[in-house]
């Protein structure tokens, strides 16, 4: 069926900011979709509020709108652009919900916008629990016994009927937010109440527990002519009970016989047909391990995280094909882009095993509740390909970049049997490592099956890994065993541990025996047809299929899994670097392990190696390809961390020399550099005991920034305001890591300024200087950033610019550099220097039109900035104001404290752009999910040190007509200031407490600052968490509150009485 000619302009809705449950996969699918539609000659209008994405690049769509994804703004875009159609199935749950909302408000009808891909009926039939169940009953597909509830009481009644445990699934929430397994009435009460409040339609599904069933997914596609195919099926290693986003997943399924495979395939195809979806769809099924009984768990009528994974696992570009189907093309008339000769209407055959392991944020949120369940908690994922299950799993394991080896976690050996068993049974983020530990302790596969319910197939394989490890231990330096170990995916690091050697020795030994991997192609067809896809993975076998060209090559290292602190913005920079290399005539080779991203789309680079980013794996590619050099600047800390090892092995690092990286990252060397340049930084010292710390504080003075020296990225960093705080921190730090010193710096309060620059060593160009709304002390990734700067004087700005130029030149930066300054008492201090691409590269690139990663890449290849007509200093600034607002995923992460500090907590970001700062802030905040009310109440509970500042804020809220609630101390201060306030009790007291205000959702905002003392700390924590559970913005920085006030003041009129004629004036 040819493509439609009755539509010309198509609106594509992206998925907005990265949050847990909706990550980079939608940048990948959205980018593919936009390109596919353009390829077919349609005009594409894109709406997405996330500036860190490739899809919002100007060349991806004809018109890009980086506006909030709310009905209000999308309607404006529709009014202005008058698209013929809307494609909502590529922007995740956000895109889908937006389509439903636009339809409900009659906007689609009013402007004659047709919905492509999935009809509204299809969306509702898949998403609305009741309609879905009705449909499944109609087509005779089994669903677990369940009921729809709108009240907690209904939930309890149903559970009494069918018995516990039951699962709660809120309707229309992403990543299963608010859901969970309940084993008793108390748990059900809490979860159901939480789920109802999180569901936009106040609806939850309560369902029979089928935990322990095999969880199988089918990625299916269907076109208008009713062709329906399975692109990939996948099996969750973790059985039903753990969200698929939090499960280790393998593709294809491993334990299903053909009968089971076909039975579930038939069900999946029947479902996509009955829904009438034109495009991609994900069907999740539960299969009884002891019979043919199965249940349909869930259907996503859109491309999803799983479809991105399936695309990377098979090579089949689901989003691209789905977009083309949406405009009328059918599967049998499109070519399979991988082979180029066969058709898209077929089912890929894999001749390898794919493993996906989620990446959880618990290295940052050590206090978070790590237990896995039906609510997704992972921020990202890694994928690996191997010719055996063990190889693919271990490769994925070492791609995680956590402080563990691929299948070995040192700390696990210290766990008591009781704790080990408990954690194995409950399942948390470290379960795979704990299984390894259990086998090392002699557990049997049956014992572990009892505890984990994981299929014996997988457990036997894991057991064999440990057995091989033990065999290796008995036979050091046995080359045959070593070959076997490499075939099973063991890293040199693991061998070094087992053989009490070093990675270098293992590597050398291996090279001596020519034990190196070969590379196999991902071709969708198991080698049945010739293909030329430049998509490879390593394995230890005979034939190498990656033929090395004679062209000059550059290897770009990607940034690995999405995690807090290293998000999609690094993938953005990586992709741009690759494109720049291609433009410059080099063969651009990329290595990465994140299946969600654009960078791992094989059509982006000249060659893609889907591989772990460890020194060993990178060296194998380097040894084969012999590139001119390796680029490490764009892959975040992942790539930077590899620079040293690569250089030591004689690999050329392009751009900023290693020595410069070291001078920026090593504290002492950096201090020397700055003092040489006579550029100030906050005073600091390094201590190893509480006594030393107290002593140091006497000279430095409070407040202080304290952090352990062994971690990067602000982890475990805190601001302490007094002796007791410092003592508490030091006691804890010393207790945990005796040998590691603690760094103590003066905390200089003031406006924080962030500068991104490109340098070729001679010229330093600054595309933009940004100012943060929140004063220094809050991680730059969690601060609202404003460009161009609004509050700082030209003189201080000039100093920032000048110092950036001087530092970049002194260090000899070739490429990108990011510097953070604090403006304290009319002075500019350097806080941090990052000799690499920063988080703000895409934000600034898009606003200024300076493609920073592209230029930086060219500079690394030898071009001079003067060749681009650029000179030292800052580029002209625009009239408009651009705001970057962080977005958090706190509602998905139980027990994580939400207060903002030096440790980064946000998962994503949005942009707000407009003529004035107020309007831009409004857009940014709205896009980030904060509703800006014009009336209501605010709850204030702040630390003593903040009371004075709080008064001004309270006054302004009051002027806007807000009611004020406050706790004791704060309330008294307000009363003294003459403000009417309703004082509420502390937690635990009788009468109306501060928690009641939050629970009953009587306030639109909570303003809470961090107080000292253990009790008030934990009270504050409960208030903040309660606010999150109830969807109330909780502002922990007064600057954020002021920014919001500024917006509200600009959009509302205050009611102000005429001044009274004062007696004495008469």
């Amino acid at each position, binding site marked *: 069926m040819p493509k439609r000619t009755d539509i010309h302009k198509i609106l594509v809705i992206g998925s907005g900011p990265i949050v847990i449950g909706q990550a980079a996969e939608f940048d990948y699918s959205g980018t593919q979709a936009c390109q596919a539609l353009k390829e077919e000659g349609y005009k594409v209008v894109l709406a997405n509020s996330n500036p860190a994405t490739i899809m919002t690049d100007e060349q991806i769509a004809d018109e890009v709108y980086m506006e909030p994804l709310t009905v209000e703004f999308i309607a404006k875009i529709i009014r202005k652009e008058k698209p013929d159609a809307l494609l909502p199935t590529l922007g995740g749950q956000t895109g889908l919900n937006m389509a439903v909302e636009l339809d409900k408000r009659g906007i689609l009808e009013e402007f004659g916008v047709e919905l492509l891909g999935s009809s509204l009926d299809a969306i509702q039939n898949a998403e609305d629990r009741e309609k879905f169940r009705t449909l499944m009953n109609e087509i005779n597909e089994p669903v677990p016994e369940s009921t729809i509830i709108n009240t907690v009481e209904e939930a309890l009644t149903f559970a009494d009927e069918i018995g516990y445990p039951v699962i709660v699934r809120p309707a229309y929430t992403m990543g299963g937010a608010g859901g969970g397994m309940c084993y008793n009435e108390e748990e059900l009460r809490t979860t159901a109440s939480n789920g109802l409040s999180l569901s936009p339609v106040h609806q939850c599904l309560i369902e029979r527990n089928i935990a322990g069933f095999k969880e199988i997914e089918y990625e299916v596609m269907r076109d208008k*002519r009713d062709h329906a195919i399975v692109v990939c099926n996948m099996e969750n290693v973790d059985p039903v009970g753990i969200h698929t986003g939090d499960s280790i997943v393998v593709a294809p399924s491993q334990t299903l016989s053909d009968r089971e*495979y076909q039975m579930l395939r038939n069900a999946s195809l029947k479902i996509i047909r009955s829904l009438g979806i034109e495009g991609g769809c994900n069907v999740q099924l539960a299969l009884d391990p002891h019979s043919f009984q199965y249940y349909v768990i869930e259907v996503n009528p859109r491309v999803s995280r799983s479809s991105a994974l399936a695309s990377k696992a098979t090579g089949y570009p689901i989003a691209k094909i789905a977009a083309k189907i949406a405009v009328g093309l059918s599967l049998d008339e499109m070519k399979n882009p991988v082979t180029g000769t066969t058709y898209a209407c077929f089912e890929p*055959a*894999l001749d390898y095993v794919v493993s996906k392991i989620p990446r959880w944020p618990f290295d940052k949120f050590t206090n978070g509740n790590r237990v896995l369940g039906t609510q997704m908690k992972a921020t990202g994922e890694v994928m690996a390909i191997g010719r055996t*299950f063990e190889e693919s799993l271990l490769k994925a394991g070492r791609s995680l970049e956590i402080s563990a080896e691929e299948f070995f976690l040192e700390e696990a050996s210290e766990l008591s049997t009781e704790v080990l068993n408990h954690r194995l049974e409950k399942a948390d983020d470290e379960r795979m490592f704990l299984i390894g530990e259990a086998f090392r302790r002699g557990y049997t596969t049956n014992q572990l099956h009892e505890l984990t319910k994981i299929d014996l197939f997988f457990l036997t394989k894991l057991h064999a890994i440990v057995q091989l490890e033990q065999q290796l231990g008995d036979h050091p330096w046995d080359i045959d065993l070593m070959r076997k170990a490499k075939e099973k995916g063991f890293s040199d690091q693991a061998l070094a541990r087992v053989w009490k050697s070093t990675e270098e020795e293992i590597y050398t030994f291996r090279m001596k025996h020519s034990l190196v991997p070969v590379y196999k192609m991902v071709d969708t067809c198991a080698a049945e*047809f010739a293909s030329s896809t430049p998509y490879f993975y390593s394995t230890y076998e*005979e034939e190498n299929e990656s033929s090395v060209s004679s062209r000059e090559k550059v290897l770009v290292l990607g940034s690995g899994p999405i995690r807090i602190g290293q998000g999609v913005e690094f993938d953005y920079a990586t992709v741009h670097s690759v494109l720049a290399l291609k433009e410059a005539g080099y063969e651009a080779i990329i290595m990465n392990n994140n299946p969600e991203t654009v960078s791992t789309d094989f059509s982006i680079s000249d060659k893609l190696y889907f591989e772990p980013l460890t020194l060993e794996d990178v060296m194998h590619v380097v040894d084969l390809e012999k590139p001119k050099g390796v680029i490490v600047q764009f892959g975040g800390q992942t790539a930077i961390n590899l620079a040293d090892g690569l250089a030591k092995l004689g690999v050329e690092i392009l751009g900023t020399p290693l020595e410069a990286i070291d001078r920026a990252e090593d504290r002492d060397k950096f201090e020397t550099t700055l003092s040489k340049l006579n550029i100030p930084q906050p005073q600091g010292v390094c201590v190893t005991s509480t006594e030393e710390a107290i002593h140091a504080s006497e000279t430095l003075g409070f407040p202080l920034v304290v952090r352990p020296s062994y971690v990067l990225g602000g982890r475990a960093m805190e601001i302490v305001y007094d002796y007791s705080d410092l003592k508490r921190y030091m006691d804890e730090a010393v207790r945990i890591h005796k040998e590691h010193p603690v760094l103590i710096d003066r905390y200089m309060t003031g406006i924080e300024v962030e500068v991104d620059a490109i340098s070729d060593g001679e010229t330093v160009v600054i595309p933009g200087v940004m100012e943060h709304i929140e004063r220094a002390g809050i991680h730059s990734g969690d601060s609202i950033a404003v460009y161009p700067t609004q509050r700082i004087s030209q003189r201080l700005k000039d100093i920032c610019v000048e110092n950036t130029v001087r530092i970049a030149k002194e260090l000899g930066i070739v490429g990108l550099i990011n510097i953070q300054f604090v403006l304290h008492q009319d002075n500019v201090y350097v806080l941090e220097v990052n000799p690499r691409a920063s988080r703000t590269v895409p934000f600034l690139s898009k606003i200024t039109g300076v493609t920073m990663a592209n230029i930086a890449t060219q500079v690394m290849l030898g071009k001079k900035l003067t060749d681009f007509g650029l000179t030292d200093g800052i580029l002209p600034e625009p009239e408009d104001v651009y705001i970057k607002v962080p977005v958090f995923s706190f509602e998905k992460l139980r027990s994580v404290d939400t207060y903002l500090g030096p440790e980064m907590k946000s998962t994503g970001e949005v942009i707000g752009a407009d003529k004035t700062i107020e309007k831009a802030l409004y857009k940014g905040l709205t896009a980030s999910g904060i509703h800006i009310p014009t009336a209501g109440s605010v709850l204030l509970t702040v630390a003593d040190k903040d009371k004075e500042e709080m008064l001004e804020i309270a006054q302004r809220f009051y002027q806007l007509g807000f009611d004020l609630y406050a706790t004791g101390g704060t309330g008294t201060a307000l009363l003294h200031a003459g403000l009417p306030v309703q004082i509420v009790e502390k937690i635990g007291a009788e009468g109306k407490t501060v928690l009641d205000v939050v629970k009953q959702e009587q306030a639109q905002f909570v303003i809470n600052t961090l107080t000292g003392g253990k009790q008030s700390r934990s009270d504050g924590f409960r208030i903040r968490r309660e606010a999150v559970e109830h969807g109330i913005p909780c502002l922990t920085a007064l600057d954020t509150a002021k920014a919001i006030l500024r917006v509200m003041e600009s959009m509302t009129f205050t009611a102000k009485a005429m001044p009274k004629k004062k007696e004495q004036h008469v």
Partner: protein
Amino acid sequence: MFGKGMGNMAKRKLILEDGTTFVGEALGSVKESIGEVVFNTGMTGYQEIMSDPSYCDQIVTFTYPLVGNYGINREDFETIHPSVKGIVVKEACHTPSNFRSEESLHTFLQAKGIPGISGIDTRKLTKIIRQHGTMKAKLTAADASSLAAVQELQLSELATDQVKRVSTIKPYVVPGRGERIVLVDFGMKHGILREFTRRNCHVTVVPYNITAEEIIQLKPDGIMLSNGPGDPKSVLVAVDMIKGVLGKIPLFGICLGHQLFALACGANTLKMKFGHRGSNHPVKDIETGKVYMTSQNHGYAVEEATIDERILTVTQYALNDGSIEGLKHNHFPAFSVQYHPESAPGPQDSNELFDTFIQMIQQHTKRERV
């Protein structure tokens, strides 16, 4: 597998006609074996594939690297005595996990006397077959002389009597109350029989060399020509039989049955370079324009240029290489497909063809009665 006890598997060799040698571990029986080496791209269904008589005299390479994961059960056989000459896998699973599993791949192959090899680069082997076409190969001990084996392979002729060996010797009846079907067994997969019994048919399974007269005496409502191994031109006796029943009794051919039907209608068949073997082959129906995923296993195909359009109509073709996948007779109630609508293993998308056949029978019977 490197668990204790499995570590000392004997080494084995797979030697191809062109001299390429793969060294791996023994799997199943350790006897020597010569066959035509082919590959199948299905990711599930090894039990059905190994027991499909169409693989008679062939050494089957599984492109999916892990084979044996769900073991061998008592239900999924396509014949009682597998006639495959050997199995080639990347990794065999010795500790299968599935509720129906009765034994492991290894013990099954041992019991059936089928040799195999594991631990080799099966993708490399597949690419060789793709590039050079199917060839003869030998499974032997690791210390055997490769040179001698290559000479032996080059001198040896592949047998042409496979159908005779795998077909039933005597006719037998699977009773039912519905349509009476004569199922000619050229190496029938049980799946075909299953589809008819599922539809309550009365099935008489007969040997490949049955004559037209013998069939007519059975007074069937329809004739099913089964799948089977080898070159259709080695079974010319069946071509005569088909000519004798054509137009008298509705007829449906699958795989080898399809090729024999074509030969009986004057068309020619050719050996393909490496054939179609897998569960993901798209086939386009010309009339409806729709594409179906099919399960395939054939090394020969009907030559399009030799089709007399006055007699036969091409109904379906393979989307990827354009080869003929379906035929129907222009005047008589007879049609055939190159693929396996009974699946087992593979997608069940074209299962309705059995219903189409039964409808054809019913219409024919009605017409006869009028």
